[in-house]
């Protein structure tokens, strides 16, 4: 059984003029354990919404998201929160680090909602992403690249089965973007986590053996031509 299995997933939003706009219409999509999948799609094509639906942050209008054997749509919100904390690591496009917390505290906080606080593991994760000497630094004291590495360490804090990465290179220059992506892939591999990455950056995704177009799985997305 795949780690993630999506079928007939639909999500619409009401537009500014009151008209209903379908953003997500995914017929079938799976992610197997420990695999790494890259989805390429243009901005505004619904990639973030897709990840939010997988993470249980948004509820679909219809369809199913089966994650680690649990049907998301049948879970209460609090159960989805718990499942997300323990099973999914999320690297947000804007990193979404908590500015009042140090690097270490950002990782520890994520642990407190998931499998429990393990200070040693949190420190080792930050050392692994090259921030062993920045444990007590606040996000504002770090460069953009360093902030993203904190976000990577935080995403792995609860030893997730699946890491979702939303435009992880969006705020980085090309060189740092490549390095960040390589780090995400490597750390996910080391932690036996599957990786689902969505990005519009063809260049960054070129290091993946296989890149799938988001428009191929989402019926509502405009068709794109792969690089």
């Amino acid at each position: 059984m795949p780690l993630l299995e999506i079928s007939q997933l639909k999500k619409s939003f009401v537009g500014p003029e009151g008209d209903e706009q379908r953003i997500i219409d995914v017929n079938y999509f799976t992610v197997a354990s420990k695999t790494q999948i890259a989805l390429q799609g243009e901005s505004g094509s619904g990639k973030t919404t897709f990840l939010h639906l997988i993470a249980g942050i948004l509820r679909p209008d219809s369809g199913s998201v089966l994650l680690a054997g649990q049907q998301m749509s049948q879970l209460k919100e609090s159960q989805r929160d718990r499942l997300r904390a323990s099973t999914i690591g999320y690297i947000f496009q804007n990193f979404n680090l908590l500015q009042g917390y140090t690097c270490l505290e950002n990782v520890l906080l994520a642990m407190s909602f998931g499998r429990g606080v393990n200070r040693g593991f949190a420190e080792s994760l930050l050392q692994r992403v090259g921030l062993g000497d920045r444990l007590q630094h606040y996000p504002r004291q770090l460069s953009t690249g360093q902030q993203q590495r904190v976000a990577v360490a935080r995403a792995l804090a609860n030893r997730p089965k699946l890491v979702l990465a939303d435009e992880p290179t969006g705020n980085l220059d090309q060189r740092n973007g490549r390095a960040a992506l390589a780090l995400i892939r490597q750390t996910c591999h080391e932690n036996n986590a599957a990786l689902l990455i969505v990005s519009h950056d063809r260049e960054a995704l070129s290091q993946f053996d296989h890149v799938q177009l988001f428009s191929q799985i989402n019926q509502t997305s405009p068709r794109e031509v792969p690089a």
Partner: protein
Amino acid sequence: MTIWSIVWKSLRQHALSTCVTALCVALAAGLLMSVWSVEDQSQAAFTGINAGFDAVLGARGSKLQLVLNAIFHVESSPGNLAWSDYLDIQKNPNVALAVPLAVGDNYRGYRLVGTTPDFFDKSQYASGKRFKVMPGGRFFDPTLREAVVGNFVARRLGLKLGDTFHPYHGLIFDEKNQHSETYLVVGLLEPSNTPADRVIWIPLEGVQKMTGHDPNAAEDISAVLVKLKGGSALGGFQMDMMYNKQGNRLTFAWPIGQVIAGLFDKLGWFDRVLTLVSYLVAVVAAGSILAAIYNSINERRREIAILRALGARRVTVFAAILLEAASISALGACAGFGIYGFIMMIASEVIRAQTGVVLEIFKFDSVLLWGPGALVALGALAGAVPAFRAYRIEVAQNLAPIS
């Protein structure tokens, strides 16, 4: 990392707002505790003070005025009574001790009270406690112009043993009304924490025969302090009937504590106003907590959304905001003890200066427990509104930076 660390972080991040709001709570707590405590303590102290006597006999008039004048040495005397009245009550079989008092003069605003040595020798101002003079001093000789100075007066006026002074006529100090008699300070009272500390005691005749006083009233007195045999309720009742119901010339104020309790009943509205004000301040403080946190929720939407995206449940966010409000209240309540101590210090000093009654600043009163507890609960209740707002924050809509 626990919910407490989330709360602590938030309090630190909003340190200025936290401090200002906590200060509001501290004011409310300090005011509430001090109003309550002053009320309780002063009522207990004033109704408990009787200078060791059960009743006061004086001219026809208000019982309260009589007691305030004779026991607390405030207010003017309702009038004089004849020496024969003193002799009559002294012979009453219900009376264990009767001590005459005469007032009408002052020294620099502190009143002179004329009495007999019985006041010091035979009475106890509290159970087992007699007035004592400080080492080197003695009580006055009733045939001489000698004075025993109350402890508070001695400290305020700097009077020492061997000092002399000229009394001034009337109960209000006026330099033009100086008497020619010279009094010698022969004793300084040890602190009794009673109104006796605020008085200069001289022989009864000293007041009666002071130059300038009406010679026709030379044998009159202002009041008689009465101690009943065994505190006899029956005796007190009989004398109450005799002087107050059957007679119409004198007033017998008995029992003293009940007369003072009547004063507190009359002043009850004032207590209620003060208590109401402190309640209102508490409500305002709770409102300030509500407003401060409620407004901060707007700028914390993204932070809350991030917490939720990391796996925090809605109830966790709700509880964190509620705890934050309760923590601000608790901080304020703790600081409130400082404000309470400050208000009590001033209040007790004022009350002591005005009446000689001493309030204990750190005496336990149940309000010291329930007051801060109620404020913390009120603060938490006020936090429920912003907590509910935080509870309802939608994660997906608020994860992007707020520009």
